[in-house]
């Protein structure tokens, strides 16, 4: 019985200690006086709202973004440590959004790389995938679905990439794979399905 009580006391005591861990996180901060007021502000935020009135909700009408190219002057969200971007492409049907950025791996300019950003705006989810094309050098998006008629279909469509060495690579957004287009094959864009070299395909690297 004594042991049971001891166990209960130990467990209860440690449970209190665990709850106190939240305050410890704040205690890590400190440092320069110019940050003090802002850091103290963070520590003073409540965990409940004084108002229980719901805010107005904005229109939920889907607002598509027609397929468009993103040239080198457009901001890239992907860090250069992951991708040295050449250009990008974007489309959204107002519910789901897909952006593709092409270039070379941040750590190796010889490796062609594509980064795919997908946002499910209704579900509040965002996914990022990295697809490497092998030793192609930097990739550039050469052709992709554009305009207002492709806002949904293009999200699982195909994008043609040009490699630094002059080769062509096809990105299948539906499969999440790249395939190297055989030399001499007819140009796959627009409308015609290209011949691809299966042996040169690379799976998604996550």
């Amino acid at each position, binding site marked *: 019985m004594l042991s049971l009580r001891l166990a209960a006391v130990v467990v209860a005591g440690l449970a209190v200690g665990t709850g106190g861990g939240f305050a410890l996180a704040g205690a890590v901060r400190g440092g320069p006086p110019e940050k003090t007021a802002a850091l103290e502000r963070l520590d003073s935020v409540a965990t409940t709202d004084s108002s229980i009135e719901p805010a107005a909700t*904005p229109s939920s009408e889907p607002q598509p*973004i027609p397929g468009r190219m993103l040239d080198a002057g457009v901001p890239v969200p992907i860090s250069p440590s992951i991708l040295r971007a050449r250009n990008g492409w974007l489309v959204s049907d107002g519910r789901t959004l897909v952006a593709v950025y092409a270039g070379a791996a941040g750590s190796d300019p010889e490796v062609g790389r594509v980064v795919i950003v997908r946002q499910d705006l209704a579900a509040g989810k965002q996914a990022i995938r990295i697809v490497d094309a092998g030793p192609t050098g930097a990739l550039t998006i050469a052709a992709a679905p554009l305009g207002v008629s492709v806002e949904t279909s293009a999200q699982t469509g195909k994008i043609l990439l040009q490699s630094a060495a002059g080769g062509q690579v096809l990105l299948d957004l539906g499969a999440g794979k790249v395939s190297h287009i055989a030399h001499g094959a007819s140009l796959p864009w627009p409308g015609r399905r290209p011949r691809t070299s299966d042996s040169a395909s690379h799976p998604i690297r996550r």
Partner: protein
Amino acid sequence: MRLLAWALGLAAGLAALPVAAAASPTPATAWYMYGDSASELRSYAYSHGCSFAQDQPDASLRVLLLDFGAARKLGSSTWGAVDFSNTRFSNAEILAALERAADGYHNCHVRGAVDVVYGASNYHLSGSGMSTTDAWHAGYHQSERAEDLHDYQVSQGYSSQTSDAAGDMEPSWDGELITKQLVNGDQGQGWALYYDFGSADGCPQSGSADGACTNGWQVSDVGYVSFHGLAVPLPEIYYSVNASQWTVVRKWWDGAQSSGYFFAGATASTGVGLTPTAAWGALESQNSGLVDSELVCFGC
């Protein structure tokens, strides 16, 4: 005795819990902002605020980082950002979107608190025609809009919320002189913490000296944009090397400056070398006790 041993074993396990929890904060989703219109931006921001609140894993204060793209001067006295869909938004439009994010968080609030953060980057500031003075004003107004957002949160009774600013400071994207002005402008305005969720791209991976990084930057420059004034580092840790680079930044700062450098947490991503949890752990393992329990994640 066996029961006592069990109790002590349980006690030992529970004693490890705070450490384990501190070592692996749950990732909080951060968002790249795309929008073709101001109304679209507001709608998406509301959605992000709501989903963030619904998914908030614990009762602590977490950062909701909305990355609006690159800081820009839009007119003679108009500031804002160009977003990732190549649409220019004024700070007034961005503030309206941030307010909708606050509304979304309030309407969907389950537990805890939030720091709604106006993020932008140093992407091609000079290339867009901005001067160092322009960059200072961009940082100033970013902080000012964060304060405006806080005024809104207070006026609406959103006491579980506060607001700050952030910069994706990437050495590859522009020079150190103009990038530092974003931090200086933020400090000049004086309200917002300026989370640096950028990289120490190309910086040394060991030592504590002021070595060279990418694009003419030095370790000391990364230290400046991440800890000078109201700046606090929330660095991108995508690969193990990133944690080593940031450790060098911290060591340099501690050796050269009077104040102690600490990390607000880490920025992680899916699809890269380190999982979010491993990213935070990699930084903490080299900076024990100096990494706060924030973990923002793009792609989570």
